[in-house]
């Protein structure tokens, strides 16, 4: 009220006071900043340096708190260090695994719906109740979804921990780190199942790490920033 009303409202207090009382008696429709401060509220006039006229900023992190390892920025989200990398990487991969596993379970559930049985007395097909069908589908979803999500999440944890460790040991991040940590985590995941399984899983994880690197490059290419080799 005291700084927002723009041009029509001057600093003469004799004029503003009755108007203020009049406004207070009006029924309150909605309370947000513009209704409190007046209709022509412009946040950029408050303080030009505060940057209040910007939209909501997602992850606008302070510069001094960011990850300092060279080449570790992924161009998608800023990161404060290995903890952020691990949390976001694991979360994203876990949710993706949960989603895809759930879809697969949905498919399986619809494939194995209970069939209507022949009633021996009336010699007609007994319809399957809806609750039974729903239960079958939900059972399959909750069987496949968490399994895929857990597997993917564990892989992502191992990948991110090994990746951050390699970054810290070498002092820089590049694609070789990602590939090596993918290989190591894949091998570690199947390390009790024999050499063939180790080879398959580490190959798959290396390919996944390579595609992640390619995806980062793609996004960074759009942003115009560059990566370490």
């Amino acid at each position, binding site marked *: 009220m005291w700084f927002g009303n723009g041009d029509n409202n001057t600093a003469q207090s004799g004029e503003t006071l009755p108007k203020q009382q009049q406004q207070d008696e009006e029924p309150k429709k909605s309370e947000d900043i513009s209704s409190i401060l007046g209709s022509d509220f412009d946040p950029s006039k408050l303080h030009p340096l*505060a*940057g209040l006229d910007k939209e*909501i*900023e*997602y*992850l*606008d*992190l*302070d*510069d001094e*708190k960011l990850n300092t390892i060279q080449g570790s920025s992924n161009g998608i*989200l800023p990161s404060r260090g290995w903890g*952020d990398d*691990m*949390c*976001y*990487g*694991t*979360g*994203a991969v*876990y*949710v993706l695994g949960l989603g895809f596993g759930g879809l697969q379970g949905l498919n399986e559930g619809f494939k194995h719906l209970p069939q209507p049985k022949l009633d021996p007395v009336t010699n007609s097909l007994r319809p399957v109740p809806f609750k039974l069908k729903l239960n079958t589908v*939900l059972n399959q979803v*909750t069987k496949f979804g*968490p399994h895929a*999500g*857990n*597997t993917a*999440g*564990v892989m*992502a*944890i191992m990948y991110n921990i090994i990746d951050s460790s390699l970054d810290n040991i070498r002092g820089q991040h590049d694609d070789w780190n990602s590939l090596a940590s993918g290989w190591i985590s894949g091998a570690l995941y199947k390390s*009790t199942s024999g050499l063939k399984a180790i080879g398959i899983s580490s190959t798959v994880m290396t390919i996944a790490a390579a595609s992640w690197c390619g995806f980062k490059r793609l996004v960074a290419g759009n942003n115009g920033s560059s990566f370490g080799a």
Partner: protein
Amino acid sequence: MSTPEADHSRDPCPIVILNDFGGAFAMGAIGGCVWHGIKGFRNSPYGERGSGAINAIKARAPVVGGNFGVWGGLFSFYDCAIKSVRRREDAWNAILAGFMVGGSLAVRGGRKHMFNSAVTCACVLGVFEGVGMLFSRYMAWANKPVAMPIPDQQGSPLAA
């Protein structure tokens, strides 16, 4: 860039759900490794203790991680949703979010089970919030501003 006094220790709302999913999953999986490693070691016969521990970890640690992750992620999701609806941040947000999480996770057990576990979760979160409030108040009391000592009116000790 941003204002220097802005708190960036916690990320803004929609994206923090992923962070909480991952953080809770990692906490559960790593904690599950320790827990089920010890449990599998102790429950195995002599000579197979190492392999018993590894088998227990392989079988159960991801499940613990998944349970933690789903709980934490759903809690963060509901917390953000309630924040955006209520447009304020207080202890009720966490309690309501705990209520919703408890209900959502028990959704297949029927209405009674849903309600019971929702209330249980809300109570647990309420206790957490209450303990947090007590603790912060205790810390504020320990750091309370101290009044300056009143100077002696009868004269300073040096003069006496």
